[in-house]
């Protein structure tokens, strides 16, 4: 492997120096220091500024050599590009082994910048410092409470790791992490990939015990074969979701060759991702939801799914969505039908989707969940209709007609919603089978106790059943490759 060996120090530094800290809250050198301090980084934090001001309660140091040697091994570099090359030997001297270069003005600006970037990397190699970036937003590493970036947000802790060729896409994924409360382990804006490339981060995520799932955003892959090998190695052990920018860009066409004219960049890229065993997704939200699915659900043993619904139309659409995947809408075995009969009035659908048709009473939903998941022929379950009672509760609480009676009913509805969500979480854990819940109320009313309870416990509530079906189908496909 031609990769970089010690990427681990980027994500697990013992101490951090912000080079070029600023007193101005609008400057990168301030934002970076602020984020590192406010995320509560576990090690010592130093900052340099030639005027030695106190910033955010930290006494800054005039020169890099004033930082006590051996206390910090990672530098967040926010100074102008021409100054970085002279700073590198000084950083190496105090024990820095890895650095993130935020500064722009390199390859992205043209020939002159490209030459400067080459000098930067050559100097870094000479000094034994590995360089992430340049021209990137920074990195996040929640296992050590590190938010070393010049933008927001800082996501909750989890096991999804990201490497992105776009800073904005990285932020978007972390915003979705905050929204859903499904956390991130490592996240890096790879910038110009002057030295460390996306393939190197993939290699690191393979051995990183904090990482269970990876998402990458790529626009171009100059060293495509190396990228493929790294992607394949990682995808054989952990699910990898790939978002590709520039899908419509037409490829270089090999003249006179038929094969060349049919082979666009994207068609080969798409086939390569499949061959590597990773998942190509064309949208950021779907990419996050798929990663969140892998992060939170157990792997199913097979492709037989049961849809359980208190909402008829959603059940029909879900069955339609299932029919265009490799999932199998389980034909209910007779013994399972008999068990359901004992829990529901005769008007239930007698079929899959299991439509309760309003026949549920106080304990029906938790009991039915157990009966379905306990059965050997059921590999996974999609649950629809969470939050409907909570929605009635909300309108009672907000009502100008509210009285003791409506309040009592609203509270009962709320407690039922919480019970449903709790029983879904408990059943997923007890039976080790995926249970995917879809309800638009997760965004329409984030305080609804059904979706909110799922969110508080780090479970995803999908907004549409077709999204849940897609995610479950990929979960089944990945499980099958793991069993091979």
């Amino acid at each position, binding site marked *: 492997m031609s990769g970089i060996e010690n990427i681990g120090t980027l994500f697990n530094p013992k101490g951090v120096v912000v080079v070029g800290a600023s007193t101005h809250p609008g400057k990168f050198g301030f934002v970076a220091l602020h984020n590192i301090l406010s995320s509560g980084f576990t090690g010592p934090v130093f900052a340099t500024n030639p005027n030695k001001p106190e910033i955010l309660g930290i006494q800054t140091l005039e020169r890099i050599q004033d930082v006590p040697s051996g206390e910090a091994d990672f530098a967040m570099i926010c100074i102008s590009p021409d100054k970085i090359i002279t700073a590198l030997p000084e950083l190496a001297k105090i024990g820095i082994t890895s650095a993130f270069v935020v500064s722009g003005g390199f390859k992205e600006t043209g020939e002159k910048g490209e030459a400067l970037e080459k000098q930067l990397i050559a100097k870094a190699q000479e000094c034994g410092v590995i360089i992430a970036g340049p021209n990137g937003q920074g990195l996040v590493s929640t296992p050590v409470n590190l938010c070393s970036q010049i933008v927001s947000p800082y996501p909750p802790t989890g096991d999804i790791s990201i490497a992105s060729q776009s800073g904005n896409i990285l932020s978007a994924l972390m915003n979705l992490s905050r929204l859903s409360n499904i956390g991130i382990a490592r996240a890096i804006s790879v910038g110009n990939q002057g030295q460390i490339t996306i393939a190197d981060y993939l290699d690191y995520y393979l051995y990183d015990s904090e990482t269970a799932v990876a998402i990458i955003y790529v626009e171009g*892959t100059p060293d495509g074969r190396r990228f493929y090998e790294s992607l394949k190695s990682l995808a054989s052990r952990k699910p990898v979701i790939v978002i590709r920018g520039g899908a419509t860009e037409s490829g270089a066409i090999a003249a006179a060759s038929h*094969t060349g004219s049919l*082979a666009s960049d994207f068609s*080969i890229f798409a086939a390569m991702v499949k*061959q590597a065993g990773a998942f190509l997704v064309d949208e950021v939200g779907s990419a996050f939801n798929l990663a969140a699915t892998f992060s939170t659900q157990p792997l199913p043993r097979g492709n037989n799914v049961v849809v359980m619904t208190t909402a008829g139309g959603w059940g029909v659409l879900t069955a339609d969505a299932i029919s265009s995947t490799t999932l199998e809408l389980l034909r209910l075995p007779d013994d399972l039908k008999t068990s359901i009969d004992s829990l529901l009035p005769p008007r239930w659908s007698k079929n899959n989707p299991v439509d309760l048709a309003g026949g549920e009473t106080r304990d029906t939903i938790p009991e039915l969940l157990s009966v379905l998941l306990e059965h050997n022929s059921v590999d996974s379950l999609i649950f629809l209709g969470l939050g409907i009672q909570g929605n009635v509760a909300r309108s009672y609480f907000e009502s100008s007609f509210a009285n003791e009676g409506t309040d009592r009913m609203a509270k009962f509805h709320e407690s039922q919603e919480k019970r449903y969500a709790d029983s879904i979480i408990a059943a997923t854990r007890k039976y080790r089978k995926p249970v995917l819940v879809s309800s638009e109320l997760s965004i329409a009313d984030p305080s609804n106790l059904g979706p909110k309870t799922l969110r508080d416990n780090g479970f995803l509530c999908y907004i549409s059943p077709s999204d849940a079906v897609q995610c479950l189908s990929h979960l089944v496909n990945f499980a099958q490759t793991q069993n091979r």
Partner: protein
Amino acid sequence: MSEFSSKKLLHEYGLSITNEFVVKNADQAVEAAKSLRYPVVAKLSSAKIQHKTELNGVRLGIQNSKELEVAIRDLETIGSDVNEFLISEQIQGKREFIAGYHIDDAFGPVLMFGLGGIFTEILSDVNFRLVPCERREIENMINELKASLLLGPFRGEGEVSMQHMIDALVSIADCGLANPEIVSIDVNPIIISNNKPIAVDALVMKS
């Protein structure tokens, strides 16, 4: 490389090709056709001529020696540098595919397979795999195509063996990988005849 030598090379790696001969004139053509079965096909043959169809250099459905003589004389009128002809058996089949190999700038050696015939470009039902790769990956490449349905029983023709299809594609990849000077291989069309894939035309390009 000429069509004839391209196919001969691919055949060395296991690809089934048409029975054919290179001849210099009509007499030799008639002689060669004796060991083939009519109808036969006559084409211009030269490493320099890559677009036979554009030059109107292909004669199909030649039924007997008389028609063959006429066809060769006709082809001779196309240009003064025309001095070789390819006489091959005419393969009958309703199902046409296209296969290829090229060195991609980013990903290196890539194998292609897809729907052939007149709809190739417009439907663009083609798929790729980086090679070398396992046979299972080549099977996936075939199965991911809409056109893979054509490998089942089709309009009176039988099912095509998946193993034969994989063998054909592996032989193209092997040929490319074993010869580093090869930059691309086009096999167009591959026609399914007696339920087996046969390369009817091919073009190997070297750097």
